[in-house]
């Protein structure tokens, strides 16, 4: 009975949603030209495959996200351990970093790093973007990782100590694997956020997916078609990532 109700609710909701979209689509005094979108993904010149600008944008977005993800995890780890360290100065430093980053908009951080800090160090736009994204997502990962470590039972540390494991090995072999297993779903969510947040690097003229989209729109005014296509690209990247992480999660479950 309950099951049937759920199905009914879901189908009603979906129907209303589809109806709203269709009505909006029809009422918008806008001339849809979907046929013009395909060449921006790829085309064939003399039988050779040529990647369109949107695919190039996907590649740049992927590159920025991948590098930032690794750096964000490293930053997050370091900062989490700093917040749990016995040294007050380290704890305060890490706390300041996390709170500053988490309580200011990413857009402003990107601007500050690109227009204020990077001229001093002579960094490229790409480097500035990677630094900004890594610091931003690192601060969030730091909190996730810290909570994961706090949640590991004290007995685990004591057991490791009693069999005489050195500190590094304790963390490497006992703490970190358990922490990862607990926090993986949250870290996955964070990495999806990172990919979406990377859209903001278009503001400092990096030719990522969003920037390429903006560029095509400003040249052709295929506004809605291109933005829908760009949204689909993001969706496919994040969906793939989520799928991979879910596979890793199930793997880890069997190891335990």
């Amino acid at each position, binding site marked *: 009975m309950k099951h049937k109700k759920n199905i009914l609710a879901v189908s009603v909701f979906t129907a209303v949603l589809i109806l709203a979209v269709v009505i909006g689509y029809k009422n918008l005094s806008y001339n849809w030209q979907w046929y013009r979108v395909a060449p921006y993904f790829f085309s064939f010149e003399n039988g050779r495959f040529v990647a369109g600008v949107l695919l190039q944008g996907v590649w740049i977005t992927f590159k920025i996200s991948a590098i930032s993800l690794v750096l964000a995890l490293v930053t997050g780890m370091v900062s989490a351990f700093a917040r749990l360290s016995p040294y007050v100065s380290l704890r305060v430093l890490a706390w300041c970093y996390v709170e500053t980053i988490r309580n200011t908009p990413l857009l402003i951080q990107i601007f500050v790093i690109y*227009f204020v800090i990077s*001229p001093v160090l002579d960094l490229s736009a790409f480097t500035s973007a990677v630094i900004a994204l890594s610091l931003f997502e690192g601060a969030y990962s730091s909190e996730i990782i810290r909570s994961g470590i706090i949640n590991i039972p004290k007995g685990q540390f004591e057991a490791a100590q009693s069999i005489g494991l050195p500190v590094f090995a304790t963390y490497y072999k006992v703490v970190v694997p358990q922490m990862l297993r607990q926090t993986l779903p949250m870290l996955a969510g964070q990495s999806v956020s990172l990919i979406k947040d990377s859209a903001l690097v278009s503001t400092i003229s990096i030719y990522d997916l969003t*920037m390429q989209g*903006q560029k095509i*729109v400003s040249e052709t005014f295929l506004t809605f078609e291109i933005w829908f296509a760009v949204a689909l690209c993001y969706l496919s990247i994040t969906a793939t990532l989520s799928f991979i992480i879910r596979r890793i999660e199930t793997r880890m479950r069997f190891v335990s």
Partner: protein
Amino acid sequence: MFNMKKVLTAVGLILLMPLALCLAGETGDRLSKESVIEKIQKDKVIRVGMSTFVPWAMKDKQGKLVGFEIDVARQLAKDMGVDVEFVPTAWSGIIPALMTGKFDVIIGGMGITAERNLKVNFTTPYDYSGMSMVAHRKKAEGFSTLDDFNTDAVNIAVRMGTTAEQAARKFFPHASLRLFENESQALQELNLGRVHAVVSSAPMPVFHALKYPDKLFVPLEENFTKEPIGFAIRKGDPDAVNFFNNWIINQHASGFLKEKKAFWFESRDWEDLVK
């Protein structure tokens, strides 16, 4: 024997004739009723889409909008006997905003181009502008022709979605473009010496070079394009095109446009307003 099918078709067509005539008459009426001109008079306000461009439209010290474009829109509203409401919009999204009815007309120094014209209708030009450049003294040392900037080593910053972007693509196909949402970011990039030049509609580049004479210079004496500027309105509205066109023709004839252009583009008397 005569063909039954043909007879029936003929009869049907004859019966449909008055209906078709009615519809034809209706179309003209309906178009007029649906015209944005009608809507403006009903609402007693004309909503104008624009974006900040010195000296077309900018904020003065009190935060009020001033500029060439603003004067034109205010005069237009006065002649129509309605109030004017300015809707500041990001330049890269201004055409979609017009198409989806966020405002009635774009009066924002918009150059008439074929690509834009496929999506919106333009009035007859009320102004002509041209592209000009401001370059970095150190990075672009000795550059004095268009060809000097057309090499792989050159970076040029422009505002996204402007005719400046198109001009830069056309005249400097070898240079790499850095696109920004705002003029100020593009100029910041130039001041930091990360790009060789900024391309933008005259007279802004010259003004900017005058502000930082030790860092920047104007490499070309003349503007390197000439482009017509028109109001943009939604497609399928002949009444609006007719009304605005005739208003513009009148303002050319009365000297209003010429006088405003002289004040905003050839003099610097307005600088005290914004500083």
